C-alpha cells in the first residue's frame, strides 16, 4: 500500500470513529433517561395532578403548561420572525443596515437564556404588570426564539435560486408578487421545518420561564393567560433539586425527563417528515 493511501485510510477510520462516538453519546443519554424514566410513565403519570408533595400522582399540569407556553411563544415569534426574515433577505439591499440587522440578530441569539428571563421579568412581569403569567412567560420565550426564526427564514429564502426571481421579474412581476408566488412556495418547507425545530428548543427552556411564569407546585389547570402554570423543564428542576423528599421524587424526575425528551424527539421527527412531504409536493405542482 502506498503511503498516501495509508494516510487516507487512517484519516477516514479516525473520522468514522469520532462520528460513531457522537452517536454513542446521544444513544447513551437517551438510553439512560429511557431506562430510568420509562417505568414511571403510565396513563396516570401523564394525566393526573401531582400529589403527596410531588412524590405521587402525575405531571399533567406541567405538560399542559409547557403546551400553553410553546403555543403562546410561537404565536408571538412566528409572524414577527418570518416577516422580518423576508424583509432582511428579500428587500434590504447589501448595506450597512442589513449587516447591522444581521449582527444584532446573531447577538440576540447569543444572549444567555437566563438574561432573557431577567429581562422578561423586568419588562412583562413588573413594568407591564402582567405578573407571573402565561402571557409574560410566552413573550419571554418568544423573544428568545425570535433570532432563530429570523435566521431560519433567511436561510430558507437564501436557498431559493436567484434565477427564479429573475424569471419572475422579467415577466413583469413586482417584488411582492415574486416573493408570494415564486420564492415562498419554494422556501416554505424549510421555513416550516425550522419553525417546528424551534418548538423543540422552546419546550425545553427553563431559565426564561423561571421568573416569568413557572409555578413550583400548582395542581390545577390554567384558566386564563394571566395564570401561572407548571412547566416540564422547571418541574424537572424542582423534582431533582428542591422537592420535599428528593429520594422519593427522583423516579418522578426521570419520568418527567423522559416525557420532555420524547416530546422534543416527536416534534423533531414530525418536522423532518413534514419537510420531506412538502418538498415532494412543491416539486409536483
Amino acid at each position, binding site marked *: 500500500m502506498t503511503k498516501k493511501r495509508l494516510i487516507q485510510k487512517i484519516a477516514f477510520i479516525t473520522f468514522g470513529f469520532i462520528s460513531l462516538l457522537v452517536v454513542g453519546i446521544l444513544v447513551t443519554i437517551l438510553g439512560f433517561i429511557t431506562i430510568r424514566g420509562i417505568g414511571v410513565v403510565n396513563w396516570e403519570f401523564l394525566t393526573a395532578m401531582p400529589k403527596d408533595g410531588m412524590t405521587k400522582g402525575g405531571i399533567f399540569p406541567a405538560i399542559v403548561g409547557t403546551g400553553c407556553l410553546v403555543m403562546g411563544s410561537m404565536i408571538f415569534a412566528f409572524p414577527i420572525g418570518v416577516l422580518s426574515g423576508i424583509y432582511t433577505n428579500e428587500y434590504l*439591499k*447589501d448595506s450597512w443596515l442589513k449587516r447591522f440587522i444581521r449582527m444584532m440578530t446573531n447577538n440576540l441569539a447569543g444572549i444567555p437564556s437566563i438574561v432573557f428571563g431577567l429581562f422578561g421579568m423586568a419588562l412583562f412581569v413588573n413594568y407591564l404588570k402582567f405578573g407571573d403569567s402565561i402571557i409574560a412567560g410566552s413573550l419571554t420565550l418568544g423573544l428568545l426564539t425570535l433570532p432563530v426564526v429570523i435566521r431560519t427564514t433567511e436561510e430558507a429564502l437564501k436557498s431559493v*435560486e436567484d*434565477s*427564479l426571481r*429573475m*424569471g*419572475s*421579474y*422579467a*415577466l*413583469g*412581476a*413586482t417584488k411582492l*408578487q415574486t416573493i408570494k*408566488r*415564486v420564492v415562498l*412556495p*419554494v422556501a416554505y418547507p424549510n421555513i416550516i421545518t425550522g419553525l417546528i425545530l424551534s418548538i423543540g428548543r422552546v419546550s425545553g427552556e427553563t431559565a426564561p420561564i423561571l421568573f416569568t411564569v413557572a409555578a413550583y407546585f400548582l395542581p390545577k389547570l390554567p384558566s386564563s393567560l394571566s395564570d401561572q402554570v407548571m412547566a416540564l423543564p422547571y418541574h424537572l428542576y424542582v423534582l431533582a433539586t428542591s422537592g420535599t423528599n428528593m429520594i422519593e421524587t427522583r423516579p418522578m424526575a426521570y419520568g418527567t425527563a423522559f416525557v420532555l425528551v420524547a416530546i422534543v424527539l416527536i416534534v423533531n421527527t414530525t418536522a423532518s417528515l413534514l419537510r420531506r412531504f412538502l418538498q415532494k409536493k*412543491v*416539486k*409536483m*405542482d
Partner: protein
Amino acid sequence: MIQAEAKKINVWYGDFHALKEISMTFKPNTVTALIGPSGCGKSTFLRLFNRMNDLISNFRLEGLITVDGENIYSKDAKIDEIRKGIGMVFQKPNPFPKSIYENVAYGLRVNGINDRKTVDETVERSLRQAALWDEVKDDLKKSAMSISGGQQQRLCIARALAVQPRLILMDEPASALDPISTAKIEELIFELKKAYTIIIVTHNLQQAGRISDYTGFFYLGEMIEHDKTQKIFLNPGNERTQNYITGRFG
C-alpha cells in the same frame, strides 16, 4: 422602421466602465446576435432592454434606450410594465416549480389577467408558438420540473411569449442544452422571427452565423462592429472582428 434602439450608451458598475458609447438599432422581425469574448459587456447590453441591470446596486447608465419609440428609462416609466412588454430567456432553463400550465400563465396572472378562457387560449397559443404544445398538451398539469432541459427552455420561451412581448431577449439560451435541443431552439428562433424581434447573446459563432440577420461584435465594453451577419463573417471591416471570428483570440 426601428423596433428598438440604443443611443450613446455608457454603463458603469461602481468605477468599472462596462459599456462605452454604444449605439445600435434593431429592425422589426430580425434576429441580432451579440458576440464577443466573456466579460465584453454583451450580456450587460442585452439586460439594458428589460432593465434587469437595475437590480444591481451600483449600476449607472447614461444614454437612451427606446423600444417602439418609448424611452424605457424615462422617469415615469413603470419598471414592471416595461419588463412585461419585453420577453427574456435565460442561459439556464429556469421554469418555476409549478405546473407547465401555470408557468405559461404566470405573466398573465401577475398582470391581473385571470379569465379562464383567455388564459387557456394564451397558454395553448404560446406553447404552440414555442413548438412544445404537441409534446405536453396532455400533461399541462404536470410539474415543469419533470420535463427535459430542452423542453424546459422551450417552456421558458413560451412563458415569455404569453405576454406578447415587443422584443425578445435571449441570453445564451442554448448553452446549457444538448445538440438536438439546441437545434430545436434554433429552428424555433427562426420561426419566431416572423412575429417578433429578437436579440440573442451567444458564445457559439456557428450559431450566430446560422440564426442571425445582424451581428454585433463586442470587445472590452466597446461595440467594434455591427453589420449584416454575412458581412461580419465573410468580410469583416475591423481586424479585431476578423481575429475573433477566425478564432485567433477569445
